[in-house]
């Protein structure tokens, strides 16, 4: 066993040319594909329902069709996803799952439901309150409803056994991804941020079964690699961007190393706690409610700065770069507080407003370069 790291990456990188390479291949093989937009979506449920869950991500390019239905002040993620829906690029999906997260997603789901034809839609009413028995009860009932919807659409019953199996599979995958993050934190020279993001991106677009196998091989290979000195400034990226590779690449091209992240399409996707004991739906509800919250959700007493400071200290990070999607309100509201806390801890940070459907602009590169220069001079 033990594929060459390059071979592993060859498989991972298949998604760079076509995000839905694996999904489309599976579809050709007769499988059912479920597209989901949010990490609060109970993927395990769709998996148990016989679907291959893939993450719906926007793409590069203009959004002329979406512009007819969403104002210019809608985020580029929403526009891009809607545009791809309207052009038929997502027609390979057998199911699309929206979750209630922020105001934009909430209304995007509605516009999609009314204007994109041919794909069944499920909207998960995730409670915005991420704590307490009351919210837990609500989420449990909602997950039962979603389960019944999936069963109705697919025609297949989701048994507790199958659900438990899927939950275990996803748990194993989370553990693997977190292990990889840990290895990288302790030894950033293992791979570049760009390489790491290929692994991360493919994790949303490949079957967990296959990705697990590749991950386990990769981890075995990397586990015993001794740390090497890093001369470049170490960066933590945070924010609300979904497709980060272009930006990560740009940051590394000017001589920094992206060592860790606090991104939705990154470490935040692996924050579910271990599967507890009990009835599967109850367990699912508990897990999803007790996870580290996304900024669009409210967890009483939660401090969004903690995770930044923790990661900066644990990884000897030199600076934080926020990749802030224009018009993303939840993250934009957190930013002033995060900036203040980082300043208090003496951690330099840079805010960059980005669009998710455009190539990385020159202005971005220039700013990052200037920031990295200041880090080099410290």
């Amino acid at each position, binding site marked *: 066993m033990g594929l060459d790291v390059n071979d592993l990456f060859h498989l991972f990188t298949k998604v760079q040319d076509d995000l839905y390479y694996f999904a489309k291949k599976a579809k050709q093989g007769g499988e059912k594909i479920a597209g989901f937009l949010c990490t609060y979506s109970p993927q395990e449920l769709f998996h148990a329902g016989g679907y291959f869950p893939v993450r719906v991500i926007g793409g590069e390019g*203009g959004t*002329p*069709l979406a*512009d*007819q239905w969403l104002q210019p002040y809608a985020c580029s993620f929403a526009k891009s996803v809607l545009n791809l829906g309207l052009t038929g690029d997502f027609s390979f999906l057998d199911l699309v799952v929206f979750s209630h997260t922020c105001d934009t997603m909430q209304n995007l789901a509605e516009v999609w439901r009314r204007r994109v034809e041919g794909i069944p839609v499920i909207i998960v009413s995730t409670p915005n309150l991420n704590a307490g028995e009351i919210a837990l009860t609500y989420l449990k009932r909602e997950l039962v409803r979603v389960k019944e919807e999936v069963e109705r659409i697919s025609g297949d019953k989701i048994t507790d056994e199958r659900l438990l199996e899927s939950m275990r599979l996803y748990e194993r995958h989370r553990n693997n991804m977190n292990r990889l993050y840990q290895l990288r934190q302790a030894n950033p020279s293992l791979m570049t941020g760009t390489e790491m993001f290929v692994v991360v991106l493919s994790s949303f677009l490949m079957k967990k079964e296959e990705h697990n196998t590749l991950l386990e091989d990769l981890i075995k290979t990397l586990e015993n690699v001794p740390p090497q000195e890093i001369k470049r400034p170490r960066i933590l990226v945070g924010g609300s961007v979904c497709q980060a590779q272009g930006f990560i690449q740009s940051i590394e091209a000017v001589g920094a190393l992206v060592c860790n992240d606090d991104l939705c399409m990154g470490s935040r996707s692996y924050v579910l706690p271990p599967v507890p004991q009990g009835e599967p739906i109850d367990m699912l509800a508990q897990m999803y409610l007790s996870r580290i919250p996304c900024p669009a959700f409210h967890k009483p007493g939660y401090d969004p700065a903690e995770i930044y400071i923790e990661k900066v200290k644990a990884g000897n990070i030199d600076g934080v770069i926020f990749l802030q999607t224009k018009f993303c309100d939840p993250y934009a509201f957190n930013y002033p507080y995060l900036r203040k806390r980082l300043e208090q801890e003496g951690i330099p940070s840079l805010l960059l407003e980005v669009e998710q459907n*455009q*190539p990385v*602009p*020159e202005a971005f590169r220039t700013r990052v370069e200037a920031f990295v220069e200041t880090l080099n001079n410290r």
Partner: protein
Amino acid sequence: MSDYFVIGLDIGSATAKAVLVDNEGKKCAYAVRPTGGRLVQSAEDVKKEVLSKTGVVEESVKAIITTGYGRDIVQNKTKSLTEITCHAKGAYITMPDIRFVIDIGGQDSKAILLESDGQVGRFEMNDKCAAGTGRFLEVMARTLGIHLDEMGDMALRSEKCSKISSTCTVFAESEVISLLAQGEEIPSVVSGLCRAIAERVYGLASRVGITPPIMMTGGVAKNKGVVSWLSKVLKQELIVPEEPQIIGALGASIIGLEWVKKNNETMNKITQNI
């Protein structure tokens, strides 16, 4: 000789246009002048120009309808109406089958859906952003060091078409400079710019709901490159009238004529009943 005439004035921020029609709605003369920032004066000038071209005296002019940015400041007028209403009427009079009007002017662009009787249905305007207007092409012509008038033919002749991704005029300018530095040829860049403006306007038009037959009006309709790209992007043939810039003023004059006729009719009825 017609016993009366009507004038339509379209006073835009960049150009002033006048059309003079006779009592049967026949277009007798038109005039186009840059405003040079002096709206009231240029309105007077174009009016005088159509009068002198035809030899008509001002007393024979029974109505003056104004439209455009400067419509309300013109003193001596019968009525003022927006460009939407006037462009719709102008297009309809020119070709009654027209269902859609795309107007790209110096500083704004509009898309108008006409109902089957030529009345205005839905409409959308872009007057906040230079991209998608004649100003975009003006800026780019300067950057490329060519004449605005050359752009159309250049674009048509070019086999290649550069990709311009910036949606903002200011950033597109930087992008054009980069493209030239990378060795892209000017005609290719011009073609790319024409496509960019077409795509921008397509967005505006699709918000209204594209319905053929489509007429293109406004100064930019004289740019064959933009017309060609817009046609490609819309996947429709575009009808471009002989003088696309005066459609608004023409529409205003016809509305004026209708007003005069209705007024005369009422006056006649009153006289009969006395």
